[in-house]
């Protein structure tokens, strides 16, 4: 007889109360910049929960809803891939056979060899993004491509992150170097242009709140009322893509009010340099002085004539003169500043209002507040450069900061994305990336379709993707499926889950989740720490990390000797061979013991940094790399060693002087005439791109995407709240539910980014995208940025049977 006491047994302890078998410090980090260290509580090889892990310095603990959902729901998600799959039947039909790794490698290797035989080995190509911030995971593809030969597609343009940096590169001689966000409370005025820390960098938002608590003023420029705008003192509801006119109008106010820092401009920018008024070219010493060198020339008011920059005592900022040259010509010369002002003067606040959508009075007030605040910190979001003229937007804000004397000043300047992760990713040592010593061919990612469909510049016939939500994130997937895929002899995808893109592959290779990987390095996004990814749960099924996947193919193709490092070894190797001295200086013992170690920021007095270091780093991170104060020594890796506001090398394309480069599908364009609404696809707090939009608890919080429209635009189209609408242009169409809201400016419609095909009907937003290029960007970088937000669409009430409503979620 069983005991009556055995009835009504006590309830099981909840997840949080159960004793874990182990607690593992590892790193979450799916392309979101939080790079959060987490303590994973593991029981029976399943993650019960995660908690924020600690750091050497207090106050950095962080975690977010995405990380919690991913740790508990992605590893065993029903779309999770655990075995290699080879398709049976036509691509995209969903018929797979489970294969062994050997079978998968056989399949891949034989087709790569056939492609190589028919088209040349470089017809085998690799492309990936940054879905996983683990350094080894991210760079293994490059290693493989470099070992095997073939073509490596670059991704900065295709990921839509490249344009702004191209503006910065020319102006400051480097990709942007940023302030440490944890010090933002020291700035008194925060000008966030397209920067949406609350949605996309919420783990750093606590520092912004510290600033607000300390009395700092926050101004947000954004076409959409983001969560960050909701916290700001002022919101400038900018017409999308019109940052340049806004900034130029602000400059007009600043100069008119006498707030420009003239001395600084004279000393640290090329504004006073003399140019040939007709050709726009800079004058050189050798033009004007017998035996002169290539140095630049200014008008020295102390002596009333031109002088080499290095000799002039009182250079003029403004003025034009007729000057005799050594070759006997007389030329019309003027200062660069004059040339700049000739273009900029027309951007008065009153005349710029309707162009940028900000009332004159608000422009005026913002300009004065910025120019008089000390320190004033400009923080740029990548959204502002996702337009045809994206390079000019960054250039504009840098110019604004420069004319106010803010570049090189503590807690001021212009910041964007920067931190150990960018350095880790972009400065990986050649010994790691190209172990054979010979890097392979590269092609720009935005030219993917041309290379396959038109064989331009040469034919690509095999494509291997990793770390990329290709179907949701790229502008190419529809055309890829229709035009390019039929021409590919091989399409391989490494993935954790069966994405919409992986569904079309010939071979899908299962990748471990972040919690199953071991000994990978995750450098902090905006926090100055290096972290170790440590295995919390064993790999599911036959899944492998990217390194091991590529190791397999390289072994099969006879290049295995470069892939024999154990994980711990390769982690150390990546650090030791890295180009950044700060990365190399990470303390390995501490890192191994604690799972986290500081990435030191070094400080050099002006002129102290060794030239070898400067040369190695300069193109990537600026001459005062790793300094607490970016560009603090006010030396720039530009031809003039100054901030180059005037860019003579772009005279021939009319961009020597910063001017508005309008969105190619913006107001006034032919695209806009037919499709008068501007679609911006913003990043939301609930998902880092496409990685979280399939997780059940995220979908509980946010069932699906809705298109935000202002009432003015909705009413004129007969669209009401929750109606299904058709969004379309020449290139594609899709259906989605509408939401009528006050939080987006009329003329702009907004959609959250990262939802898969199943969240829409009749198409996907990426079908509407284009990859029209910019001459400036092509020249600087060999390709143009994918201008995500430079997109004209029309919206209409959808006809036909409605799909299920996503609003009114069940709570």
């Amino acid at each position, binding site marked *: *007889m*069983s*005991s*009556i*006491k*055995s*009835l*009504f047994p006590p309830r099981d302890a909840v997840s949080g109360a159960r004793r874990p078998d182990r607690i593992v410090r590892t790193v979450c980090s799916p392309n979101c910049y939080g790079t959060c260290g987490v303590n994973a509580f593991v029981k029976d090889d399943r993650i019960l929960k995660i908690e924020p892990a600690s750091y050497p310095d207090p106050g950095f603990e962080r975690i977010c809803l995405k990380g919690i959902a991913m740790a508990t729901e992605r590893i065993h998600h029903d779309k999770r891939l655990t075995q290699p799959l080879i398709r049976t039947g036509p691509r995209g039909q969903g018929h797979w056979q489970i294969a062994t790794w050997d079978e998968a490698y056989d399949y891949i290797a034989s087709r790569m060899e056939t492609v190589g035989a028919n088209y040349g080995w470089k017809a085998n190509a690799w492309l990936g993004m940054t879905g996983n911030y683990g350094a080894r995971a991210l760079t293994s593809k490059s290693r493989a491509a470099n070992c095997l030969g073939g073509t490596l597609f670059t991704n900065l343009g295709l990921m839509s992150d490249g344009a702004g940096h191209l503006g910065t590169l020319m102006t400051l001689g480097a990709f942007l170097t940023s302030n440490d966000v944890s010090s933002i409370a020291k700035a008194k005025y925060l000008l966030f242009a397209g920067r949406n820390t609350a949605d996309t960098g919420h783990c750093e938002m606590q520092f912004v709140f510290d600033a607000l608590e300390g009395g700092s003023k926050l101004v947000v420029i954004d076409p959409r009322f983001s969560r960050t705008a909701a916290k700001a*003192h*002022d919101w400038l*509801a900018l017409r999308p893509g019109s940052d340049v006119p806004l900034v130029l109008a602000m400059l007009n106010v600043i100069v008119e009010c006498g707030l420009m820092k003239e001395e600084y401009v004279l000393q640290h920018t090329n504004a006073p340099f003399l140019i040939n008024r007709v050709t726009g070219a800079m004058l050189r010493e050798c033009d004007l002085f017998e035996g002169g060198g290539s140095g630049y020339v200014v008008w020295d008011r102390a002596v009333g004539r031109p002088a080499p920059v290095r000799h002039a005592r009182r250079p003029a900022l403004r003025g034009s003169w007729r000057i005799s040259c050594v070759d006997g010509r007389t030329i019309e010369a003027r200062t660069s500043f004059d040339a700049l002002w000739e273009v900029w003067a027309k951007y008065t606040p009153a005349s710029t*209002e*309707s162009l940028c*959508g900000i*009332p004159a*009075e*608000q422009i005026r*007030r913002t300009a004065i507040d910025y120019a008089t605040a000390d320190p004033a910190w400009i923080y740029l979001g990548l959204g502002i450069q996702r337009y045809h003229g994206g390079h000019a937007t960054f250039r504009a804000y840098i110019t604004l900061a420069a004319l106010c004397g803010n570049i090189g000043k503590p807690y001021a300047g212009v910041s964007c994305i920067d931190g150990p992760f960018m350095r880790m990713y972009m400065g990986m040592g050649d010994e790691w990336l190209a172990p054979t010593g010979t890097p392979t061919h590269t092609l720009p990612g935005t030219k993917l379709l041309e290379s396959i469909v038109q064989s331009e510049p040469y034919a690509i016939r095999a494509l291997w993707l990793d770390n990329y939500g290709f179907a949701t994130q790229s502008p190419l997937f529809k055309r890829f499926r229709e035009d390019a895929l039929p021409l590919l002899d091989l399409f391989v995808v490494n993935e954790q889950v069966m994405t919409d893109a992986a569904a079309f592959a010939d071979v899908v290779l299962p990748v471990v989740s972040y919690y199953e990987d071991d000994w990978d390095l995750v450098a902090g996004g905006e926090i100055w720490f290096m972290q170790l990814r440590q295995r919390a749960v064993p790999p599911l099924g036959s899944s492998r990390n990217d390194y091991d996947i590529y190791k397999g193919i390289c072994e099969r193709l006879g290049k295995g000797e470069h892939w024999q490092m154990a994980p711990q070894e390769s982690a150390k190797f990546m650090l030791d061979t890295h180009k950044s001295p700060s990365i190399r200086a990470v303390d390995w013992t501490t890192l191994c013991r604690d799972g986290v170690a500081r990435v030191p920021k070094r400080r050099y007095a002006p002129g102290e940094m060794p030239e070898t270091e400067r040369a190695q780093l300069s193109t990537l991170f600026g001459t005062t790399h790793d300094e607490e104060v970016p560009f603090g020594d006010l030396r720039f890796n530009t031809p003039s060693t100054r901030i180059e506001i005037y860019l003579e090398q772009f005279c021939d394309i009319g961009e020597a002087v910063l001017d508005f480069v309008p969105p190619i599908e913006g107001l006034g364009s032919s695209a806009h005439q037919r499709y*008068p*609404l501007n679609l911006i696809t913003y990043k939301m707090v609930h998902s880092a791109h496409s990685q979280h939009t399939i997780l059940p608890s995220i979908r509980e919080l946010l069932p699906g995407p809705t298109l935000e429209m202002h009432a*003015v*635009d909705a009413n*004129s189209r007969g669209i009401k709240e929750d109606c299904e609408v058709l969004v379309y242009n020449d290139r594609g169409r899709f259906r989605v539910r509408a939401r009528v809201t006050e939080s987006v*400016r*009329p*003329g702009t419609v907004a959609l959250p980014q990262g939802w898969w095909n199943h969240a829409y009907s009749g198409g996907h937003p990426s079908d509407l995208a284009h990859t029209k290029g910019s001459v400036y960007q092509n020249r600087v970088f060999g390709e143009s940025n994918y201008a995500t937000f430079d997109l004209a669409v029309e919206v209409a009430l959808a006809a036909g049977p409605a799909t299920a409503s996503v609003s009114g979620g*069940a709570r």
Partner: protein
Amino acid sequence: MTEHQRLVIVGGGQAAAQMIESSRRLGFKGEILLISEERILPYLRPPLSKCYLTGRYTTDWLLYRSKGFYQQHEVATTLGSRVDSIDRGRQMVESLNTRIQYDWLFLATGARARRLGVPGDDLPEVVYLRGVDDAHRLSNFAQSASRAVIIGGGFIGLEVAAVLCQAGHRVTILVAGDKLMSRFGSDTSSVGAAVPSFFQQVHTAHGVAILFNVTVAEFRKTSSGAVDVVTEGHAVHSADFVVVGVGAIPNVELAVDAGIVCADGILVDEYGVSSDPRVLSAGDCARHPNAWRAEPIRLETVHNAVEQPRSAAAHIVGIRQPYRQIPWVWSDQYDYRVQGVGFADGADLAVLRGDLQSGRFGVLYFAKGALTGAEFVNRPGDFGACRRMMNAGASLTVEQAGDASLSLQALIPRHAAVGFDEPWVPRPSRPHPVRLDPHEVHS
């Protein structure tokens, strides 16, 4: 006003404790006396036929309100005492030869187990389960014995049967009528019989023997210490102990003797007031009007005990708060919880919701297209939704009732949105209000 008054509460169940709580809460400042026959302070009665039988719980666990509660609410409690009579003319009660004056008298005397009155009724092995002492006796028997006979097919009998059966006892149930659970089901259709017949099958499947149309004639102690249950048909069922659950009788004798109008319960109005304006009543012993019925009802359910006193308490402080709650009951047997709300009799249609095979189903009763009541087995969400819906005066259609894939959650009238009563002082408005550019309008 009330600080010079005295409220005397006769009875010691949940209604009594609730009267104390509600009276104080609504501002009754006078003396409160509690006179209870029970040995311990008011306690929860439902667990006595369920988990309390495991012996794992103490009487402290069972208490409805803590000892501290009575101190905090300034109540003088007298336990283990009967009230012998009420003198309405002089507004006094008599207990233990003491006369106690009252300004308000609250009768919460509850009900007692109905006794069979057959020979052997008083044997120690025959347990009429009503109070905590009965439960202790039963629990003791259950630890050591193995054969149990249960008389009665209502909640008490069935719950005890389930507990004993799962603990390994051999259980036989003898039912006087022809079906179980007369509080559930109706004759509307075979659907109406679903719940009682479902439980009959469940018990039988667990090995419980159920016999219908059996009348007990005698309980006989045997020489081995067992008890023989002898029926009128001369059948003999041997048991180590017997549990009897054949209904309850309201304890109205005190009221009847005092001339208060009773009819199977003390008759009260919607404020809990009896035929004597100074005497109120609530709970198992009170027959009260119910908005969902034409005639007053008396129901043995803890719900009445904890809800009705609120109206009575309101009355004694001068607030009119009529009692208006749809009644509901529940029973736990094995892994099944059956919950009922409203009324089945008077219905012209019974709709099945869900499927019987799964053991998760409901029966919803309609009269002229309006929902009058419902029973659910292991569909707690539906039960709760129906109860809340009916309590709020809402209903659902016959189609909705029968569609098990439709969640009833959405039919519950929503609360008003939660917010701050006063708005926050807004941030200083922007110095130059921004205007909308007319050129922005796109057609």
